[in-house]
């Protein structure tokens, strides 16, 4: 197919534009023949709920809060390329779970870090993407920096459309090198805390999407991740037979996830139903399930309202205990609540409004975790399970670049009556 071929029929133009903007292409900004620059900003405030006094060592139980600022820029270049840059700046503060000790009645008591943690995080990520006749391919690079943490990451991704664009095959390979230099590591105050450590992480995924009906599309994806190196938490301790030992986890981890996603449009209601499900398992003996259902309701005056509900559950890692009454033969100890069995439920509502080239959005999400929210009975539930609230607001602005003049042909403009976005794009002979 030659890129110089131009669709001349208005109907064909409209259909081509619709096909090019299929969900498998991950959103309107990614339809090939992009002509819009997009700039955006998002602010998010994350606040963890205080732990109840009965679950802590008598302190106020105040926990973590994070303020995030995200800056986003998408720049198309020519007919086939676009470049995306994302910068995120975060400030984190508050107390974090330190270790769990048995109370007088044997109940697990969460001890929080005494001093308030203050940290900053900056993440810069870039992506160059090329749009091809039958798909897209992209290269991503990123750096993440905290006071005590540095990570470099990179990856390649590709999508291939086939079967007259009823199917899209997607795949990606990623690598991350993470280096830790914990605060006060190896100091006289914390002699058991490591001074420096690192890890390597490899990720691969493959997915297939299928258009099922004119209103339904589904996707199935399998992902695998292998991590090697220091995978423990240098700031956490484990209570082992009346001693406090450093958190110590295996040096490698294999993780698999099977994800299914479904999108269905209800024309009579002008709404879309989103269902996302995932099954996860890893080499630490931990398995989890998650299910999210969202309802994207289009409203008059370019408003959109999206309520959603997410349920999550996980089992515990095979070496996890809130505290240990006897030493383990393998020497692995972790009382991190993130390796405990539990269930979680979160509700979210988001509103979005488009006005000329601007889009405005606001969202609030409440997340609650509890052993009772898991389907399976939870034993040894961590007293440090987290509940949190996230509020966020975002604004973005899109403006069009002049379309490039087709090579060797006259320039054809779509007729005004056609649905937007309509672009002059190549078609298969």
């Amino acid at each position, binding site marked *: 197919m030659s890129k110089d071929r131009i669709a001349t029929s208005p109907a064909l133009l409209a*259909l081509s534009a*619709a096909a*090019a903007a*299929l*969900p498998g292409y*991950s*959103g*309107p900004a990614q339809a090939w023949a992009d002509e819009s620059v997009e700039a955006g900003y*998002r602010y998010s405030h994350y606040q963890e709920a205080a732990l109840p006094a009965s679950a802590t060592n008598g302190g106020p139980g105040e926990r973590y809060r994070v303020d995030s600022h*995200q800056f*986003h820029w998408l720049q198309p270049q020519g007919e086939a390329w676009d470049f995306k840059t*994302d910068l995120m700046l975060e400030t984190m503060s508050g107390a974090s779970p330190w270790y769990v000790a048995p109370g007088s009645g044997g109940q697990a008591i969460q001890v929080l870090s005494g001093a308030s*943690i203050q940290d900053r995080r900056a*993440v810069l990520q870039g992506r160059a993407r090329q749009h091809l006749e039958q798909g897209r391919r992209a290269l991503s690079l990123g750096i*993440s920096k905290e006071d005590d*943490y540095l990570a*470099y*990451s990179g990856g390649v*991704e590709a999508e291939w459309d086939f079967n007259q664009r*009823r199917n899209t095959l997607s795949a*990606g390979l*990623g690598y991350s090198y*993470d280096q830790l230099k914990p605060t006060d590591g190896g100091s006289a105050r914390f002699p058991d805390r490591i001074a420096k450590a690192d890890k390597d992480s490899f*990720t691969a*995924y493959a997915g*297939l999407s299928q*258009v*099922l009906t*004119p*209103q339904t*599309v*589904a996707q*199935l994806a399998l*992902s695998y991740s292998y991590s090697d190196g220091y995978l423990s938490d240098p700031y956490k301790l484990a209570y082992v037979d009346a001693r406090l030992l450093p958190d110590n986890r295996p040096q490698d981890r294999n993780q698999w*996830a099977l994800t*299914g996603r*479904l*999108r269905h*449009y209800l024309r009579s209601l002008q709404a*879309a139903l*989103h269902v996302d499900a*995932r*099954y*996860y*398992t890893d080499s630490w003996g*931990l*398995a*989890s399930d998650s299910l999210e259902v969202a309802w994207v309701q289009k409203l008059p005056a370019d408003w959109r309202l*999206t309520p959603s509900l997410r349920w*999550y559950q*996980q089992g515990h*890692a095979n070496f996890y205990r809130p505290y240990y009454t006897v030493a383990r033969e393998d020497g692995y100890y972790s009382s991190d609540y993130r390796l405990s069995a539990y269930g*979680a439920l979160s509700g979210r509502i988001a509103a*979005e409004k488009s006005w000329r080239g601007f889009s405005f*959005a606001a*969202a609030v999400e409440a*997340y609650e975790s509890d052993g009772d929210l898991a389907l399976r009975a939870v034993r040894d539930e961590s007293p440090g399970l987290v509940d*949190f609230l996230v509020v966020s607001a975002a*604004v*973005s602005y899109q403006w069009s670049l002049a379309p490039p003049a087709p090579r060797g042909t006259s320039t054809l403009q779509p007729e005004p009556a056609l649905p937007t976005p309509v672009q002059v794009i190549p078609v298969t002979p």
Partner: protein
Amino acid sequence: MKTKSLLLAGALLLAGCGLQPVQPWQREDLARPEMAWERGLVEEGAIRSHTYQSKEAAIGGPALGGGGCGCN
């Protein structure tokens, strides 16, 4: 659970193979912004994934994540 998930996912895709092929002129609804895999402005999906991954044990999905974090 794993077996059930695999069977369900396989049945879903196989069902697609047995349906009438959707033609290009029938894809107007599929192309609507409400149908995008990732919804939300300014990498909303990325920060939501980051939040869940820093508080839960599970990771993974049909996308590459960014750099790691020393999340507490």
